[in-house]
């Protein structure tokens, strides 16, 4: 398995950042009240095991207590979309999910729910991704998606969609923590945090895939995660989002965390050698004030657990 070394990685990231700075004349608005404060702060942790990296990342963001209050109902939303094993990098790293669950419970969450609307048969996905087992051991309530729990939610600021069914557990949660895995995707080029929100919607999801950039932003205006933690322990660089070929997997041992969902995605895009401005959904999201993809304006804190 080929791994990109850190220098190469930083070079790509730096180049991407510079390019973005040159390309975007206007500065993005940091929208959403939950992103107030250290909005543009982005934490990148690498070279640790998934649990230690996520602990570090959350600490650097001000600790879990900043996000989870006693008695809160928390939704931790990984990507469990496919009947694949963790080594194939199609689903979120189970240890990472479990550690987030543990941290939330330690902070006093009354309940931590873990679910995803899968593409393959749900029991296969929950089982083979190992998320079911790990999250349950960590104390989460892991359950399948139920048609009965979808509720039509209005999308007042929607451009393509005016209403779409959303999962009640996600709508009603006190805290929503988005935990996607970074993967190649032919339509959107990469699937990261914003695309991961497709796991909480009902209806015919295939319909989201045309005029995708606008529709995915429409959906992201309904539920705004308080925290996005991107799993880049292993990333899938080709034949995503399902993969299946281990040659398409790169071990990055990286975790990216932040409160601005656009910023987190923007940084993660650079792992694939992409400039954030190349990604239509990030441009659209910034235009609508969901966050900023301008890497130069972010305060990026990089933590190397090796040294």
């Amino acid at each position, binding site marked *: 398995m080929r791994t990109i070394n850190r220098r190469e990685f930083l070079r790509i990231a730096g180049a991407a950042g510079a390019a973005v700075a040159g390309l975007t004349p206007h500065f993005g608005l940091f929208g959403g009240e939950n992103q107030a404060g250290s909005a543009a702060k982005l934490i990148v942790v690498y070279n640790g095991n998934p649990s230690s990296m996520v602990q570090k990342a959350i600490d650097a963001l001000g600790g879990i207590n900043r996000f989870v209050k006693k008695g809160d109902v928390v939704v931790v939303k990984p990507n469990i979309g496919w009947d694949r094993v963790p080594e194939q990098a199609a689903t979120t790293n189970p240890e990472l999910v479990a550690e987030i669950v543990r941290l939330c419970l330690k902070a006093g969450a009354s309940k931590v729910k873990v679910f995803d609307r899968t593409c393959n048969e749900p*029991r296969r996905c929950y089982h083979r991704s190992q998320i079911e087992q790990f999250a349950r051991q960590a104390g989460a309530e892991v359950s399948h998606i*139920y048609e009965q729990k979808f509720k039509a939610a209005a999308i007042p600021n929607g451009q393509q969609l005016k209403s779409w069914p959303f999962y009640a557990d996600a709508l009603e949660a006190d805290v929503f923590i988005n935990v996607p895995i970074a993967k190649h995707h*032919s*339509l959107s080029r990469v699937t990261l945090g914003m695309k991961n929100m497709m796991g909480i919607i009902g209806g015919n999801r295939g319909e989201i895939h045309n005029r*995708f950039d606008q529709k995915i932003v429409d959906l992201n205006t309904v539920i705004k995660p308080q925290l996005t933690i991107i799993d880049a322990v292993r990333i899938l660089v080709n034949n995503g989002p399902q993969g299946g070929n281990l040659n398409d997997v790169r071990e990055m041992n990286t975790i990216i965390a932040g409160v601005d969902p656009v910023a987190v995605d923007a940084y993660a895009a650079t792992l694939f050698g992409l400039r954030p401005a190349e990604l239509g959904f990030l441009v659209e999201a910034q235009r609508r004030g969901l966050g900023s993809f301008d890497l130069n304006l972010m305060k990026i804190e990089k933590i190397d657990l090796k040294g």
Partner: protein
Amino acid sequence: MVTARRISQLIFFIFFIYLFFQAAYPYDTWIPADLFLRSSPLIATATFLATKIVIPTLIIAIVLLALSLLLGRYFCGWICPLGTVIDLGDRLNRNFLKGRPNTIRQLRSWKFSILVVIVIASLFSVQLIWFFDPIVIITRSMTATLYPLFAFLVEAGLNLLLKIGVLQDQLFSLYDLLRQRILPVHSTFFQQSVLFAVILVGILLLSLISRRFWCRYLCPLGALFGLFASMRFTRGIAVASEQCIDCGKCQRICKMDAINDDFRSHARSECIECMSCVAVCPTNAISYQLRPKLAVQRVDMSRRRFVYSSVTGLMTLGLIRTGFKSPTSAGQVVRPPGALPEPEFLDRCVRCQECVRICSTTGACLQPGQLESGWEGLWTPMVNARHGYCEYNCNLCGKVCPTGAIHPLELEQKQQIRMGTAYFDKSRCIPWYRGEDCLVCEEHCPLPDKAIKFDVREARRPDGTIAIVKFPYVDEKLCIGCGICVTKCPVPGPGGLFLTNAHQQRWGQEPIF
């Protein structure tokens, strides 16, 4: 003895239900879920005759058939799950049946006629057992009718409770628990389920004419056991002539109308060893003996009737064979992975729907076919790719096929064997007709090197604007025909892709590419 028989019936029925629920993902049992089907000597006989070979999985059925040389039609009375269901129905019918004549003996020969028709047809490779074998009937009814009904009612009940709005969390945990094994994960609906229900209910309603009507007069499996029972080496029901007081209670209680009017003898091909007569006899004149006694009884089948039945068999198979097969619909018949080449597949497939059942618990692509491949293919499993798809990591259908019509494949083999090929309908595919990106098909294609690829090109949209669009196409050499692209295509109705059996590779055949 009657109690023992009832307990046996109950145990086997519960075992049958248990195995039915075992025939589901993840299928981690060591008992084959198709055990009852493997145990039907009729399935064994008909498939051996049709294929002209001995299928190893079915040898147990031959052992059970040989046992009837000692124990008569024990299978009908003590084991057969359809027999148990009919007995239950008859019990509910008790009052209605009281005082009705119990004898229509001339109908006894029908079941032998049906057996002859089936045997003749199988000799010429036309399967008919699927309509008549009781194990097939009950398995198919369970899969396609009773279980969906059960699931529907349980879910309706749960939904009703959920609407009340209390204990939501507990109810959903219960739901989650039930979904692991008992309830389906996605709704299970099957083509022709109403027809299957009508057949089952019809069989039960025949009991309004007389008890165990099906078993007495129609069941060809019963006929096969009866044939062997008539040559049995043991006595079975025996009457001490001097003790009999001619009260006739035994004849009245006999479910099978097996006891002759002298009350001292019976038709061995009819007796199902239910022991009711032994229990009812006021003078204990009737006993059950396994002492040897060699005497072959004639079954109720005249030579003339045998000839008539054989001719009927030939006519039937001829009619089925000469039925029109539409090339269009036949090209859409996509068989499960590992299916034998079509003629051998049809020789073996008994339409029990075990594969359909287990498939419905995961990818849910298989449905009982209609007349797509002619009358020969009625109710055979075929993929309905708009409803479900073949799970890339699933190879369960072959594991529950009792006759090996679907060869059990290792997962690696299954992931390479080609069921068919998907094609785009460019007049319906969003990028092609509308000039907008979509690629849902490509996203879902499970192959490590995706069989759906795309070109990025400029396109003129219907409104005249120019856009850069990703145009998907199928790489025919890579596609294995799992159908997930067809299932997930967001275009309603026929969809932007369709599945055909082009380039299919049946078990034992070389790959096309």
